[in-house]
């Protein structure tokens, strides 16, 4: 039987890494097919080959029986294949409309018809259900909004095959739902959709079948999801069983460690106050643009504060300087891995030791042995997939980059408050469980931990207390016994009648 989209014997190697070995499987017309696997299993690599971004060493892709030979993304586009890449690929200085039609502007004799551009994009966005003015500059959008734009970019084109690489990693459930409806519609139109996600619920909600990769090999292929269970997929992915992924365990909650009082900033005009205690995991939930990331950046001193104060163990932390925060024991894993997290062009080891190295550098001279040991230790304990600690971090898969950033702060001595913004964004199930476990043991050591997440099950699964943000302020807080999905969601939804429209700078 020939499939609509068929991968046969795809192989791809990088120096020191066999990213894909001999991958073959097919997907029928009008089907949504999941692609699963641990971080670094080779999912994105497969998508990159499908999009013409990278070329396979051997093997071939067939669409409707015809062999495809993509030399560039333009070739793939011409064959009506579009892709949402794992990392956002937008041009911040251009408008939403321009970004959506980049590479394919409506133009006569090279002159762009801006009216047509804006109208066309506007109507398509409305069609899809995205509420953004096409004339807004992308720079003014939040990550979540950008992600939606990125998805729109792929979906708007008249494609036969659409591949989505972790499209929901920075979407809240509300936007995710918009996306799922969209995918259902595309399925009805007979498109083939290849869907990558680390969220199993989504796979079961959306997919007609799925393929699991492990270490670049095909671990399992399910033509239908009938009879397939979660546990089965998890064990196919990680090679072992994970019974309770959250694994929450109670612990003693102590004194207030982090106290935020009346904090405000340019993009968060209303003052916000909250506290986190020793041993406590405080979850922050909210919809995209609720202001959680803004708040955490202010707490950390990444952006300059308007008013308010932050103190740790009763001692105030100087405003607007991450260094002061780090020295006071307050650290942040940022949400935007690419722009705020990784240091491109530098090794894994360098990325891990960037902050902590000052502790083992008498007179500023590095102890290379200690640095190497530190890096190797984390590569092992966090199971970071990399050929060596000397690998350039940009060559790591998304999830493994995230682990490196976490390792950066775990390496710091004397951390009292750990803020993690979307800590498991792009992290596979197995690693998620490990990270949660790590958070619990850190909390047990007496740290106060703040977790920002747009995944409601995650927030509810691991937090001792949840703060819900809406429109730039904390709308409600819930203690673990009071956790209730509907109540939390309700608190996150803005009261449409009372809320002022969100102002955007274009």
């Amino acid at each position: 039987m020939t499939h609509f989209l068929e991968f046969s014997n795809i192989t791809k190697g990088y120096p020191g890494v066999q990213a894909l070995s001999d991958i073959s499987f097919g997907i029928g017309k009008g089907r949504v097919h999941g692609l699963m696997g641990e971080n670094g299993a080779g999912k994105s690599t497969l998508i990159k080959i499908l999009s013409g971004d990278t070329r396979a060493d051997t093997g071939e892709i067939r669409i409707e029986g015809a062999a495809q030979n993509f030399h560039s993304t333009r070739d793939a586009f011409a064959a009506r294949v579009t892709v949402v890449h794992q990392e956002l690929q937008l041009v911040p200085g251009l408008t939403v409309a321009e970004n959506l039609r980049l590479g394919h502007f409506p133009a006569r004799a090279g002159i762009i018809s801006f009216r047509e551009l804006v109208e066309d994009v506007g109507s398509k966005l409305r069609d899809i259900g995205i509420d953004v003015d096409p004339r807004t500059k992308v720079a003014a959008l939040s990550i979540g909004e950008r992600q939606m734009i990125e998805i729109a970019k792929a979906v708007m084109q008249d494609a036969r095959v659409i591949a989505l690489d972790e499209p929901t990693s920075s979407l809240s459930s509300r936007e995710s739902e918009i996306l799922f409806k969209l995918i259902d519609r595309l399925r009805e139109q007979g498109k083939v959709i290849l869907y990558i996600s680390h969220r199993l619920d989504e796979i079961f909600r959306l997919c007609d079948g799925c393929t699991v990769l492990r270490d670049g090999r095909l671990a399992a292929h399910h033509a239908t999801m009938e009879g397939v269970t979660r546990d089965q997929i998890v064990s196919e992915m990680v090679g072992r069983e994970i019974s309770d992924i959250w694994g929450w365990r109670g612990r003693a909650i102590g004194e207030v460690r982090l106290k935020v009082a009346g904090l405000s900033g340019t993009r968060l005009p209303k003052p916000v106050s909250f506290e986190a205690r020793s041993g406590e995991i405080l979850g922050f939930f909210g919809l995209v643009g609720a202001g959680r990331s803004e708040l955490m950046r202010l707490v950390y001193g990444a952006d300059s504060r308007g008013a308010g104060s932050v103190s740790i163990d009763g001692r105030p932390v100087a405003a607007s300087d991450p260094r002061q925060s780090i020295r006071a024991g307050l650290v942040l894993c940022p949400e935007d891995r690419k722009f705020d997290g990784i240091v491109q062009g530098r090794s894994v080891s360098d990325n891990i030791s960037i902050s902590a190295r000052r502790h083992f550098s008498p007179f500023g001279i590095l102890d290379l042995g200690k640095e190497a040991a530190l890096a190797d230790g984390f590569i092992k304990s966090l199971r970071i997939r990399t050929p060596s600690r000397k690998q350039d971090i940009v060559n790591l898969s998304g999830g493994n980059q995230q682990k490196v950033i976490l390792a950066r702060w775990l390496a710091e001595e004397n951390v009292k408050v750990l803020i993690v913004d979307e800590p498991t964004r792009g992290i596979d199930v197995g690693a998620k469980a490990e990270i949660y476990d790590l958070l619990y043991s850190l909390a047990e050591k007496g740290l106060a931990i703040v977790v920002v997440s747009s995944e409601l099950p995650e927030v509810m699964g691991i937090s001792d207390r949840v703060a819900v943000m809406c429109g730039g302020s904390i709308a409600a807080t819930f203690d673990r016994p009071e956790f209730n999905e509907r109540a939390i969601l309700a608190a996150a939804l803005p009261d449409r009648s009372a809320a002022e429209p969100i102002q955007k700078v274009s």
Partner: protein
Amino acid sequence: MTGSLKRILLGEQGLVVIFAIAFAVVSLTVPNFLTERNMLGLLQSVVTIGIVACTMMFCLASRDFDLSVGSIVAFSGMVAVMASNATGSIPLGLLIAVGFGTFVGFVNGVVIAKLKINALITTLATMQIVRGLALISSDGRAVGINDASFYQLALSKFLGVPTPIWVMVALFVIFGFVLNRTVFGRNTLAIGGNPEASRLAGVNVDWMRIWIFTLQGLVCAIAGILLASRITSGQPNAATGLELSVISACVLGGVSLAGGRAAITGVIVGVLILGIAENVMNLLNIQAFYQYVVRGLILLLAVLLDNLRSRSLGRR
């Protein structure tokens, strides 16, 4: 400052407004500045910088760099003269010069885009190679032109304004339009803003870079021809250091060296600031050595003002 004044000063067109104010102040305080003659002289003095800035804007906006412009200007001017002499036809001579400049630009583009050699090094190399060729082909001497109508390119006037100024204005209009209204212009900004995203979106990045450098070469040839006509000969030493002036003008005008940001109004203002600074210093009879210092301070001041502006813009 009242709110609305602040808004005007710090708004999108803030640079233009600041410039207009500075211009008014200079007009009122510097004798002989605001005369028709001086204005025309001033504009003529910025023709070379202004013309070359049009395409340098594209080059910088796409995150590239071109140091070879001065050499191309000098050599194309010489080619225009030599080819006119050799063929006995000025139009043919000009055509050959334009062809030559375009060719050098094309070579730059191909080397940079296809061989993936850093633009700074490539154009530093062609800057020297072309200058060397200019010196070799003329034995280091100025080449004169036999046909006096060649001078008319620069001396002729339309509505009382010399042709070179019109050419500059026309190029400002054309390239302003291209930047804002065409696929080419938007793709240029996209490449500068996020090369990876542009490539993935199907923009032919290599081809765009080749085109941008080719255009740069063409425009340098035009500037070179006008310059040769103004100085009535082709000189192998002309236009040294032009690259830095042009890049300064662009950066002054808000073109980002990190790519992705450019506007023709800014570039025009940048060019005029440089021209006015020179003009006023000479009108005020400021000593040559002090001119260096003043030039440096003006540069700093202009960028500082613009930074303050855009910073408070970001804070709104």
